[in-house]
């Protein structure tokens, strides 16, 4: 068997494996769109559920997911960016810094359902927030933090050192340099990381199971201390817990959730590719 023949054979196998890996992705998205689209109409998107969720719309679940995602952003975005600034601009290579990095890696690896347990123990029971939007947002925020920190840090580090030197040599203080020079230059990269982190938070079910999610709530939440419906949990409920659920509504809910999450993905990709094309260094 000649070397050229081996190469052709192996490359064919690798190509086949790569195609086999990505084809199901297209099929999954296409299949859900195909079966979910007939369910989508004005009522489905804007009405309350009726008949034990077997009819009507999914408005409270959509609003709930929006609230949870926004609440997560309010907590995780400033904290995550500040932590990234610390790691990229202030931290020295010390034992403490290494401990912070290991902590971040560890946070990124903790299973989402363990975050749910933690949120239940700390926010719901110990701090007495109850099953509530605020408990869910805090839990999701801590889960999202490592994604935001590591992508934001990467974006900050990519800003050339000379930019900082110029600013400092013009008399700028360290904070002025970070605020006026480094952060604006790193903004697209930071935004991409933030959106990808929030995308994950929006699609997660396990962390909100015991901290925020309501099985069925035929109204919108009144305060941040109310439980809420949410799209991922709603999809879980109507596909496993409610007998006689029309299949159309299940696929419709899956499609709305998928659209929500994938459009965040798309925005992140667009920001990244535009920033790459415009980058001046």
């Amino acid at each position, binding site marked *: 068997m000649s070397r*050229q023949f*081996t*190469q052709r054979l192996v*490359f064919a*196998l*690798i190509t086949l*494996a*790569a195609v086999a*890996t*990505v084809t199901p*992705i297209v099929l*999954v998205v296409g*299949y*859900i769109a195909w079966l979910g689209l007939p369910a989508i109409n004005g009522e489905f998107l804007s009405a309350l559920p009726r008949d034990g969720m077997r009819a009507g719309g999914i408005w409270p679940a959509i609003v709930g997911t929006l609230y949870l995602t926004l609440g997560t952003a309010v907590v995780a975005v*400033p904290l995550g960016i*500040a932590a990234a600034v*610390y*790691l990229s601009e*202030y*931290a020295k290579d010390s034992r403490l810094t290494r401990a912070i*990095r290991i*902590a*971040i*890696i*560890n*946070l990124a*690896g*903790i*299973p*989402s*359902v*363990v975050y749910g*347990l*933690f949120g239940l*123990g*700390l926010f719901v*029971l*110990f701090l007495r927030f109850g099953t509530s939007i605020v408990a869910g947002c805090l839990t999701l925020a*801590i889960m999202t*933090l490592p994604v935001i920190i590591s992508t934001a840090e990467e974006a900050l580090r990519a800003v050339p050192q000379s930019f900082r030197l110029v600013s400092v040599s013009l008399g700028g203080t*360290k*904070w002025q340099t970070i605020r006026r020079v480094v952060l604006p230059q790193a903004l697209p990269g930071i935004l991409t990381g933030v959106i*990808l982190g929030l995308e*994950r938070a929006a*699609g*997660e*079910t*396990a962390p909100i*199971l015991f901290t925020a999610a309501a099985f069925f709530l035929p109204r919108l939440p009144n305060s941040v201390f109310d439980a809420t419906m949410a799209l*991922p949990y709603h*999809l*879980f409920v109507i*596909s496993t817990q409610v007998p006689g659920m029309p299949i159309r509504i*299940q696929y419709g809910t*899956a499609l709305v*959730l*998928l659209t929500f*999450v*994938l459009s965040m*993905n798309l925005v992140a990709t667009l920001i990244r590719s535009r920033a790459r094309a415009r980058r001046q260094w």
Partner: protein
Amino acid sequence: MKQKRNWVEILIESLIRAAGYSAILFVALILIFLLREGLPALAEVKPDSLLGARWYPIEAHFGLLPLIGGSLIVTLGAALIAVPFGLATAIFIAEIAPRWAREILKPLVEVLGGLPSVVLGFLGMLVLAPIVRLTLDIPTGLTAFTGSLLLAGMAIPTLVSVAEDALDAVPKSYRDAALALGATKWQTIWRVTLPAARSGVLTAVMLGIGRAIGETMTVMMVTGNAARIPTGLGSLFLPVRTMTATIAAEMGEVANGSTHYHVLFMIGIVLFLFSFVVNVAASLVVFQQRKRAERLLS
């Protein structure tokens, strides 16, 4: 005026510092609250019951082995699928694919990474499980194998992106040297690029496996949730119950502070330790690699 600005800057800088330290605080808080709610289980349940082979909380059988075994076999199955396909995809994207194919494949893999686990579980239940049942001619499609297939899908994006980064980081001069010596492109990949990227590829595999073992919703929806200790690879085609699915399915129904509640937190501690070991080991590999790179450059 200048004095005031300095004061503000000191405040801002200490806030930034605090944010940096917060990661350690959160890991500590997570551990403290898992221990606080989970450790009482050790006092309430006899150790030989916790190490028993039966998980049947209603009759106070709290054997964790079937759940740990369930998580391990589903993860093992996922690794057996995800590693070859994920590595092949990474090699294809990094080394073989023409530019246009790369531009299509990379975003697609990212889309896979963004699919919510509950959506995959939903499709797994309605579409994949019946296919598995019919193809393999077994009584139910809700098996460990079905879970493994979907978990492989969830592990692949992590695996591909980390492995691809590792392959990209191999200096072009290595490849040029191999090609100049008359090696074919494949010989270069197999004998030079992959060994040079070894530690990064290992990290990719471990992070992918870490992702799989912690996955919850997908597994709960498609693996049938029968608690029994797997006895071999044949158990892949039987229903299993994982640690994550047990917590998710049962926490909603237990009374706070009951023995069952404490045991569920105990499972959380076990999961925390698993992910801690896998992730710290993976990061140590990365640290080592960086040190070697520094040695080579100096």
